[in-house]
């Protein structure tokens, strides 16, 4: 079972997210990406072992980059972090049909709680994660 996440550590948000996700390293295998190109290469390989993906769009350009590959994210439970709360940005965010939407100006404690719940649901059979 794997968690993939995208963040660049160029800003505080990326560092915050990394520290939240690293807390889960005992429970799930983590794979970090900091370029959408490498992320898209990973998504073009088997994804059945990916339990959840977390993408942090630090700015609108990154969000548009994610949109260009959003078909590859179709069957993966996704937590998406948006750069701002503008209507247009939020609308773009919902095009991913994320399990949870957060914003870059938060401390991501909510993201941590949601991730823990999602992983717990899989472990306790509430959400089946079918690996052949």
């Amino acid at each position, binding site marked *: 079972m794997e968690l993939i996440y995208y963040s660049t550590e160029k800003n505080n948000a990326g560092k915050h997210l990394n520290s939240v996700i690293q807390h889960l390293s005992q429970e799930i295998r983590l794979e970090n990406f900091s370029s959408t190109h490498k992320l898209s290469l990973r998504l073009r390989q088997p*994804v059945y072992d990916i339990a959840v993906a977390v993408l942090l769009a630090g700015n609108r350009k990154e969000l548009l980059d994610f949109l260009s590959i959003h078909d590859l994210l179709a069957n993966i439970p996704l937590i998406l972090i948006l750069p701002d709360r503008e209507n247009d940005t939020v609308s773009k965010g919902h095009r991913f049909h994320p399990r949870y939407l957060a914003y870059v100006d938060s401390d991501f404690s909510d993201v941590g709680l949601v991730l823990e719940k999602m992983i717990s649901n899989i472990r306790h059979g509430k959400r089946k994660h*079918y690996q052949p």
Partner: protein
Amino acid sequence: MANVLIIDDDKGMSKMLFDLVTSMKHDAVCAFTIEDGLREALSGSFDVVFLDVMLPDGNGLKALPKIRETRSCPEVVIITGVGDPDGAETAIRNGAWDYLQKPLEPKKLVLPLNRVLQYRDDLKKAQKPPVALKFDGVAGSSPRMSACLDALAQAAGSEANVLITGETGSGKELYAMTIYKNSSRADKNFVVVDCAALPQTLVGSILFGHEKGAFTGADKANAGLICDSHGGTLFLDEVGELPLDVQKMFLRILQERRYRPIGSRKEIESDFRLLAATNRDLKKMVRTNEFREDLFFRLRSLNIEIPPLRKRTQDIKDLTMHYASRICERYGTETKGLSPDFFDTLALYDWPGNIRELINTIEEVFAHARFEPTIYAKHLPAHIRIHAAQAPFEKRTIEETPQKERGSIRRLSSLQEMRDDAMAKVEQQYLQDLMALTKRNIKEACQISGLSRSRLYFLMQKYNITRF
């Protein structure tokens, strides 16, 4: 002019119905057993079937689903001399139009017959707009899927709340998206609320939004998902996981179309189209006070029940080809050939994870056979191939097993399989003894066994134990 099939071993009743139907200038055919009746239903094209319950070769109620699944999907009117509430419930749940108790006078049949024929006539005349609906990923041509696709189209064309039910991995979210993409709100937001993923302490603020400072940690205002879905569609996935207090608040929004974010003094209007999905039994949750009955009724103005994959195995080929093509496109590889034995093996597996498991399996197979032009059954995971190999032996009963083999281990099954087999035998024997003791009195059987009526009927059907 309609075509009517009469399945009743009572020749007097059959003749009465035959004469009545033909006097109304319709065609009628009689059959006196279930086997003959099914043969007629499969070969003909009937609008209405009158179906007796107690027939020489079995219980007519068991044949009801098969009759409904024939090409013309006829309406079925149950006629029985031994009516009871449980039989009536079973009949209606399996799609019967009506449940009538003998003795029947011809004049009392005219009105129900006219009603059902009028309904059939209206169906034929109904002008369905030739809309090319977008069904990306919703594949299949089995009768069960045809019914689902009709329900999808109906839901897409209306603003009614829809409750989508089905097992895990059966495609509930895909159905919700399909309804949304084909609705008048397709150009607005489709907002997903994963009720199972949200911690109970956060559900309310995530849904309804909150003001800055409304609670500890709320250092910024948040509009909430209901606000995000204004003008669009709100999809509550795993709606059975909503806490009761949030259910109450949500019900109010559905009733009044207004809500107040947490910590706010102002009410906000809300206009969203609601879709919900669950793999849980909400009716049971209502009985155990885990889900509000008033919210349950609100949610399911339209109800779409997605059949599990094992009950529509004829769709597996279409689904496999669809997802195989998408996977090849994603990997950037040439389209692969899929051998007949590959499809045969897929069709023999139970698919407890339904379509999600099928997609993951195809992906795994294609990953391992990346450079091979054709996929065979041998590329499938071992547990699927084992299941297919064991399938021909599953119907063998212990009585058919030669004495000398009973003590020997011909093959070693998994411990879980052994436990399941043993439990099944115990359950079956118990039910047979129970029916014999109570002389098939369902009420008494429920009292003795402690089973609910629905659970008892489920087990009787599972082990092929009839009431008659």
